[in-house]
Structure formats: C-alpha cells, structure tokens
C-alpha cells in the first residue's frame, strides 16, 4: 500500500463514492432502457451493486494501517473516558506519578552510584594499589610512603602502563579542615590534592586551560609552587576568568602560580569529596601537619597509589608479581602494627575511590533506597489496579453491550489496556517531572559539614528509559487484570441486571488488596512515627550542656599560613577581646565541637589497668579547651577543680575527665590525683584534677564515652572554635565576632554558626530530621493510598448493594442497621490490615532500632496513636459511602429493576 494513500484516504473515499454513483447511474439508465419504471430501475441497480457502504469501507480499510487506526480510536475513546471521570483520573495519575517519580529520583541516584564512570580515559583499566588486610580485603585509605611508591614504580613497571601517587591536603595534627586559598585579599576554603607529575597523564585528561604538571614536578619538597584548579572551582570562585592563568595566589600563605584548569566534571578520583586544587606532591609541605622531609620518611604514609593496567591485562593475572613486590616492601619497610596479606591491585569501580572495605557502601545504600522505591511503586500500582477493577465492574454493562454489538473480546481487552496505558503515560510524564524536581533537590541539598561534598545525580537517557519502562510495566500490571475481568462480563447476567448477585468473589480480591494497602500504609506510618518521635526526643534529649545563646566562631590560621607561635598569640588575644564584648557572659576556646564533623580520641595507658590481650585497650575521647569552657557550656564540675589560667605549657600536665571516664577506669574510687598517659605521642603522665558531669560529644544517641579535657597551652591545635555565650539572645553577635577576627587577622576565613546550628549538623540532628521528613513523606503517601483504596472499595460495594439495601429498607430496616451492615464489611478489611501492618512494623522496627533515640522499636505511644489515627481515617472512608447507602430511597432503588 502506498503511504500517500493513507494520508489521502478520505479524499480517496470520496472518489470511490463518485465511482459507485456513476455505476448506479449507468445501471439505472440501462434498466430504464429495458423498460422499468424509474423507481424500479433505481432499486434494481442498488440490488445489483450490493452494499455500497460496505464496499467503500472495505476499500477504506485497505488504505489504512489497521493497527494505528484502532490505536488512535482507542486512545481517543480512552481520553474521553478519562475526561468523563476527572476525579478518578486525577487520583490514578497522581498515584502513579508519585510512584514513578520516587523511582526516577532513586534510579538517578543508583545510576550515579553504580553505572556512571569516572570522567577519565578508559576507566576500566584504572586500578588502585593497597596492602590487603588479613583475609584479603583491601581498604583504600592512604597507606604508602613516597619511598614505597618509588620502589613500586620501579619494580612494577612490567605489570602496569603507568603508576601515580596522590595525597589529600587539609589534615593537620589529627584535625581535618580544608586549606585556604588567598586571592586579592580574600581567603576561601579549598580542598587540595597533591599528586605526582604523571597523575593527569595517567588518567588521560586534558586541561581546559593552561597546562598540567610536568613529570619531574613534585619530586622535591616545596620546589614547584604551581597549582591546577578544578573546572568547577574555577567556575564558582573565579567566574570562568581565563586571565587567571599565570596569576599568583597563596595557599596556606604560600605563594603558588595557577598554571591550568582541569577538565569539566573531573573532581578527583574519590566520589563525594570535591577536589578543588591540584598541586605537585612535593608541595604537601605547605600543609601544617606535614614534616618538611616527608618524601624521605619511611613511616609517614600519606599516599594513595593509582596504576593503569596494560592493555588486555587483568588485576588477577598480575597478583603473583605484585605479591613478590609486596613481600619485598614489607621486609624493607616493616609495618609492625599491621599483618598485611600481600599487595593487591583493585579496579577503580564506579563512582571511584571509596574508603572502607568490601562492598561499596554507597551501592548498599542505593540498593536499600531502590527497594523502598519499588515497594512504594507496588503500593501505588496496587491502588490504581484496585481503582480500575472497581471501574471495570461498573463498566460491565457497557462492555456487555459492546460485545453484543459485535466487538471481539480481544478488541475489548485492547481497548481497556490502551486506557490504562494512557493513564500510565500521563503518570509517567508527571512522574518524570516529580523525579526531576526531587533529583535537583537531592543534588542541591545542603549538607551541614565543612567538607566540600559534591553529588552528581544527573537526569539522563538511561534514567528516562528506566522511568518509561517502569511506567509501561506498571500500566500492564495495573491494567491486565481489570481488562480481562471486564471483557469477560457475562452478557446475559449483565443485561438482565442480575450481575450484582455474583460479585462476592470479585469483592474478595479487592478486599485482600485493600487489606494489604492498609497494612503497608500502617507500617510506613509507624516507621515515620518512630522517626518523628525519635527526632523529638533527640531534640529534647538531655545533652548535658546548654546550647542556648552560644555562638561558635571557627577559624583555621593555617589557611593564611599563620605559624603556631603567632596563632597561639592570636587565639589568646581573640579570647580576651571576645570576653570584653558588650553583652557577653562568657567566652572560651575548644578544638572540637560537640557533634561536629569529627571527634578526636585514642588509646590511653592507666597504671592501675593492665591491658588484657584480646580485650579493647583503654581509650577515651579528647578535647583541648581554654579555662571557662565548662561555664560557657553550663557543665558543672562535680569534683576537684576546673582548668585555670595557671595550667600553662610550663605547668604540670593536667586533665579534667567526665563522669563516664571516672566510672569506667576508677570505679568506686576517687579519680582525683590519679594519672594516665596518652599511648602515642606525646607520652607523658597527665594528672586528673577534676570530674565534670557527662555531656554528649559525638551524637545525640550513643552511650556517653569516657572523655578528658586538657588545657589548650599544653596541647596545640590549629583549628579552634571560639564559643561566645551572650546574656540575652543577640543577633548582632555574629557581625561583632567576624569583625573581631578580621581586625586581628585580615583575610582569615571565618565560619560562624550558633550552637543550635552546630547541633543540627550531620552528626547531630540532621540525619534524624532527614529520616523523619523522608519517612513522613512516604507515610503520608501510604496514608493517601490507603484512604483512596478503602473509600473506593466501600463506595463501590455500596453502589452494588443499592438494590439490596432498598429492599431491606422497604421491609422496615432502620438506618442504623443499614449503617452497621455496610460499616461492618469495611471494618473487617481495615482491622485485618491493621493487624498485619503492626506485625510488619515490628519487623521494620527491629531493623531501624539503632537509629532511634529515647524510644524502643515497639514504642507503645507510636503504635497506638498511629493505629487509632489510621483506623479513624479508614472509618471515615467507610462511613461516607455508608451514609450514602442510608439515604437510598427504596422506591428509586427498586424501580431500577
């Protein structure tokens, strides 16, 4: 068939009509000539020709693509049906959209975590090296010295096409905070990465601007003051200014020249953490924690080693050779604290280098979310299927009539499937919109931490295809049962209006589905309730200190290259001036914030306690604070004395310990006057001079760990926080504090937040809040689905029983009796759902037990409140149709017969 005919088939049909008319005219004329009357002649001609319309239809069909034609018909009809019941359409599309949207967002996350490759050349052949733990697992924390790197590079030349090394910047004395980049009098934070000269060549990258490093750069300490910025950092901090190449900036107070800008999208081989400036390895000395001779030190191991496999080579094949090199290294540079199981090369799996051993934890998290998403989608599908079932039964009469008029069953199924496909398409479109918005929200979500984290959940074609496939599958899942059911309608039953007596079996399927929905919704709601209650109790948990009216001002003198002696004087001055500010009650300094990004601690030696092999070594958390810290935090000193100004660098080493430490290591004894020492550097005895009440340092839920506090002058840290407590809430204190820092140390970057904001950080309440919001959202979704389900089934059931109810009322049944009759059925379904949902929630509660604060996983209040709430809502959903049943006019109901 010619395609042009398809498009001109209407015109073609008109021509056929004229042709047939010509035939009739001719035949009539001949008949008249044979002697018939005009009327007879016309009738005879028509008889001779047969059914002209049928002929035209046959030709018309020959000119059309049958499949497309009927599809178009079905679509138009489906659209009309959907428009006729906007309520149903809205609920069904919204339900599908939420399900698909949630999955699209989750899938874009999974896509980034599992499928997206590092933006480097041939990522499959890129590996990282490491000493395997006993058992063979490999962790990829930095674990090589520069000497070891040089040996590996030499001895593994046969196994690899290239080997490079890299080290993170921004670590000093156990603290980790980004470095500072000063340009035109302004210092901003920068996450640095120090790499060997061949790093970029190994990864196969090309600079956007300028150059990368030369192979010989980075071999000597402090010798090559150049840097390459990441494209993203250049874009956000230097506004794509190409003139930046050749400019000199200061990193941690050391002059370096910007020589290049990296390729767009490359932010280092480690996911999440955004590397903003690359420097030659030898420049690592500008980090305050790095010794000037680190390149020749054998016990300093800051390096990560990346290696490119030779073409066609596989990590398993070179394992024996690597083991030989590994054994050699271990003999030459012993690692007394480790028992490595040989050296390994492991493929750098997407999305890149992650710390930790075994399975990629991000992948595991993704799998968890994926499961949740699929569950929500299933609930949504079940709901829409239920709605369609209800509609299908309501449309039995229509289907029967169509079947009676000659529609084939296959044709009816196709018609109904097209309708659900149309629904799915609308749901898919809306769902992709929701997914996009959620994805954007996830990407731009502010995570309260000082580290530059970057997410890259992109909406791409793979994600789009995923959404479309999801929509298509859900439409089939949703549509097939109702379509088969409706098309099977027994013509006789329906047309004789006795169909309503045979619906009980169908009703059972719907009841089961509603039961499952109520159960799913209840368990989701209970989980949401548990998290909300947990957030509430975390917010109101006794922190052991008073965060009110405390402002935290954090600075890092290293960022502008301020040496220790100057920094100590700066801190002293800062503290004095802060205390003199108007309205300030107390002010103090500390090295670590409660519930901040990290805490510090380690093993300690206590003369009274002999370490037992196999038992954990005594350990404690640790903080360096100025006098007045405990007043600022409103933490009472229970025994002995507070730290005072006279606890100087020259005075005996002292510490104040918390009650947990006293209870753990000196139970039922007086800890005052006892001593302990820190196991590693610096090893000197510390005298306990006081005991303070416990307060929460790590997070709001874990048991309180032993902790001790030493005076600042006896233990220097670079990054410090100034805590200012004002007498009354004072919004101006932030500005005053920043001005104060600026007057003492211009260009020093300052982070200011209230203690309440600190508490909402990633180790504080942030995750509680996030969990409460996410599960609350899923719970509300479940609630809506359950209400729609219960309401739909109940109102359908009532409409089916109108006749029966009419008879009962005609026979004298009271309204109350009818109400009870209808309500009972709904309540059974709801009660069963609640029972199953409770069991489900118990199971889930066990899983999330560890994240709950102040309540058990079987929290009675949550279970009772949520169950009652859901029962109440379900009751209302039952009662609305039941009330309609009561108002049935018996006369009308019976006249329907």
């Amino acid at each position, binding site marked *: 068939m010619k395609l042009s005919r398809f498009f001109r088939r209407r015109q073609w049909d008109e021509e056929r009509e*004229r*042709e*047939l008319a*010509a*035939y009739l005219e001719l*035949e009539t004329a001949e008949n008249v000539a044979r002697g018939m009357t005009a009327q007879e002649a016309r009738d005879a001609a028509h008889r001779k*020709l047969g059914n002209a319309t049928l*002929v035209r239809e046959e030709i018309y069909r*020959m000119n059309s693509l049958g499949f497309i034609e009927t599809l178009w018909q079905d679509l138009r009809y489906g659209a009309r049906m959907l428009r006729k019941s906007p309520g149903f359409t809205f609920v069904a599309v919204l339900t599908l959209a939420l399900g698909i949207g949630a999955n699209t967002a989750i899938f874009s996350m999974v896509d980034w975590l599992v499928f997206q490759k590092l933006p480097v050349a041939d990522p499959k052949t890129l590996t990282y090296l490491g000493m395997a733990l006993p058992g063979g697992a490999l962790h990829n924390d930095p674990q090589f010295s520069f000497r070891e790197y040089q040996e590996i590079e030499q001895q593994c030349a046969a196994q690899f096409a290239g080997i490079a090394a890299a080290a993170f910047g921004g670590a000093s004395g156990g603290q980790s905070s980004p470095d500072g980049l000063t340009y035109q009098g302004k210092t901003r934070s920068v996450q640095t990465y120090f790499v060997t000269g061949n790093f970029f060549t190994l990864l196969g990258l090309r600079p956007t601007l300028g150059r990368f490093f030369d192979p010989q750069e980075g071999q000597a300490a402090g010798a090559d003051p150049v840097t390459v910025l990441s494209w993203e950092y250049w874009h956000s901090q230097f506004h794509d200014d190409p003139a930046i190449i050749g400019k000199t900036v200061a990193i941690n107070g050391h002059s370096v020249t910007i020589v290049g800008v990296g390729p767009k999208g490359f932010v280092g081989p480690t996911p999440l953490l955004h590397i903003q400036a690359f420097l030659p390895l030898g420049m690592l000395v500008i980090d305050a924690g790095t010794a000037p001779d680190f390149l020749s030190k054998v016990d300093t191991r800051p390096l990560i080693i990346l290696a490119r496999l030779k073409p066609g080579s596989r990590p398993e094949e070179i394992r024996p050779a690597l083991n030989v090199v590994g054994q050699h290294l271990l003999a030459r540079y012993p690692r007394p604290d480790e028992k490595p199981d040989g050296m390994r090369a492991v493929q750098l799996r997407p999305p890149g280098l992650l710390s930790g051993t075994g399975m990629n934890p991000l992948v595991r998290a993704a799998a968890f979310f994926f499961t949740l998403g699929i569950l929500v989608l299933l609930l949504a599908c079940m709901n829409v299927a239920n709605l369609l079932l209800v509609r299908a039964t309501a449309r039995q009469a229509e289907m029967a009539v169509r079947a009676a008029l000659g529609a084939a069953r296959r044709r009816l199924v196709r018609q109904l499937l097209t309708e659900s496909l149309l629904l799915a398409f609308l749901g898919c479109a809306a769902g992709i919109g929701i997914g996009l918005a959620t994805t954007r929200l996830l990407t731009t979500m502010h995570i309260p931490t000082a580290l530059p984290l970057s997410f890259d959940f992109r909406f791409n074609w793979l994600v789009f295809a995923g959404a479309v496939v999801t929509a298509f599958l859900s439409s089939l899942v949703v549509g097939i049962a109702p379509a088969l059911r409706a098309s099977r309608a027994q013509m006789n039953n329906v047309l004789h209006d006795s169909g309503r007596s045979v619906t009980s079996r169908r009703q059972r399927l719907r009841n089961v589905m509603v039961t499952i929905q109520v159960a799913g919704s209840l368990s989701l709601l209970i989980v949401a309730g548990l998290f909300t209650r947990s957030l509430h109790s975390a917010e109101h948990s006794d922190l052991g200190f008073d965060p009110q009216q405390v402002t935290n001002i954090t600075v890092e003198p290293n960022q502008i290259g301020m040496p220790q002696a100057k920094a100590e004087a700066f801190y002293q001055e800062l503290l004095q001036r802060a205390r003199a500010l108007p309205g300030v009650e107390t002010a103090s300094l500390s090295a670590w914030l409660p519930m901040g990004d990290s805490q510090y601690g380690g093993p300690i030696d206590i003369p009274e306690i002999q370490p037992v092999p196999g038992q954990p070594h005594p350990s404690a958390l640790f903080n360096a604070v100025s006098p007045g810290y405990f007043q600022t935090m409103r933490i009472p000193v229970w025994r002995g004395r507070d730290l005072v100004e006279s606890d100087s660098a020259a005075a005996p080493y002292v510490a104040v310990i918390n009650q947990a430490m006293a209870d753990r290591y000196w139970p039922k004894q007086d800890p005052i006057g006892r001593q302990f020492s820190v196991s590693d550097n610096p090893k000197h005895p510390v005298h306990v001079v006081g005991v303070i009440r416990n307060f929460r340092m790590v997070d709001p839920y874990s048991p309180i760990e032993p902790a001790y506090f030493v005076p600042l002058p006896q233990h220097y840290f670079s990054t410090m926080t100034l805590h200012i407590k004002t007498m009354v809430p004072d919004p101006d204190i932030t500005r005053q504090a920043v001005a104060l820092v600026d007057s003492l140390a211009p260009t020093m970057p300052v982070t200011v937040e209230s203690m309440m904001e600190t508490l909402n950080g990633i180790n504080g309440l942030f995750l509680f809040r996030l969990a409460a919001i996410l599960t609350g959202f899923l719970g509300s979704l479940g609630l809506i689905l359950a209400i729609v389900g219960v309401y739909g089934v109940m109102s359908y059931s009532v409409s089916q029983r109108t006749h029966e109810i009419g008879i009962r009322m005609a026979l004298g049944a009271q309204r109350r009796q009818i109400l009870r009759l209808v309500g009972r059925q709904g309540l059974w379904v709801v009660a069963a759902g609640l029972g199953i949902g409770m069991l489900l929630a118990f199971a889930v509660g066990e899983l999330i037990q560890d994240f709950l604060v102040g309540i058990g996983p079987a929290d009675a209040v949550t279970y009772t409140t949520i169950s009652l709430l859901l029962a109440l809502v379900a009751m209302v959903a039952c009662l609305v149709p039941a009330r309609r049943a009561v108002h049935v006019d018996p006369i009308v109901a019976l006249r329907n017969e």
Partner: protein
Amino acid sequence: MPKRGAQPLQGEVLQGTLDLLVLQTLLLGPAHGHTIAYAIEHRSDDVLQVEHGSLYPALHRLEDRGWIASFWGTSENNRKARYYRLTPAGRKQLSVQTNRWQELVHAINRVLRPASE
C-alpha cells in the same frame, strides 16, 4: 438473468480468479466498472455472477499492485465514469496467472478423470 440449466456460481468466485477475470477483460481495452462486471457475466454465459459491488475492492487492489491504471473518462452515454486499463506489468501478470490457472485446471482434471470414467 441466469440461463436455465446453468446454476450461477454466486459468491463462489475465488479472489485470485476474480483478478484473473478482470485482467482478461481489460485485455480488450479500457473499460469502467459497469462494463467489466457485465463483460464477465456475458462471457461466462452468466455462470459467473459477481456481486457488482465486490468488483470495486478488487479493482482497487489491482491498481494498488500496479497491474491496472485508472482515469476518469466519458462513458458511451456521455456520463463521467472511471476507466481502467491494463498496464505492461498487468499484461505480464495476466500471462503468468493464466498459465497457473491452466496448470491448476489440468491438475484437477487429471485427478477427476479416473472417478468420472
């Protein structure tokens, strides 16, 4: 009107056969639907009676395949009518189909002969 003794084979005309008949009719020259229908009836001594309407889808199909072509012309009594004529491809098709038909008839006759004697 059908002649006595020869029962008309109404509605039994095989589809392919109708094509063959139409092509054969057009071998004599262009004709419109009315003429073709009557020609088939007359030439078969009224044994083959097509419902004249069913002729038109067949004509459409043949034209679709490029075996015949159509044009609007004026009929013998000065009326507008759609004429069909044989194309070179149609002429070739006619000889192919005629041969096949002959083979079929021979084959069927061979099968029938022993039984009829």
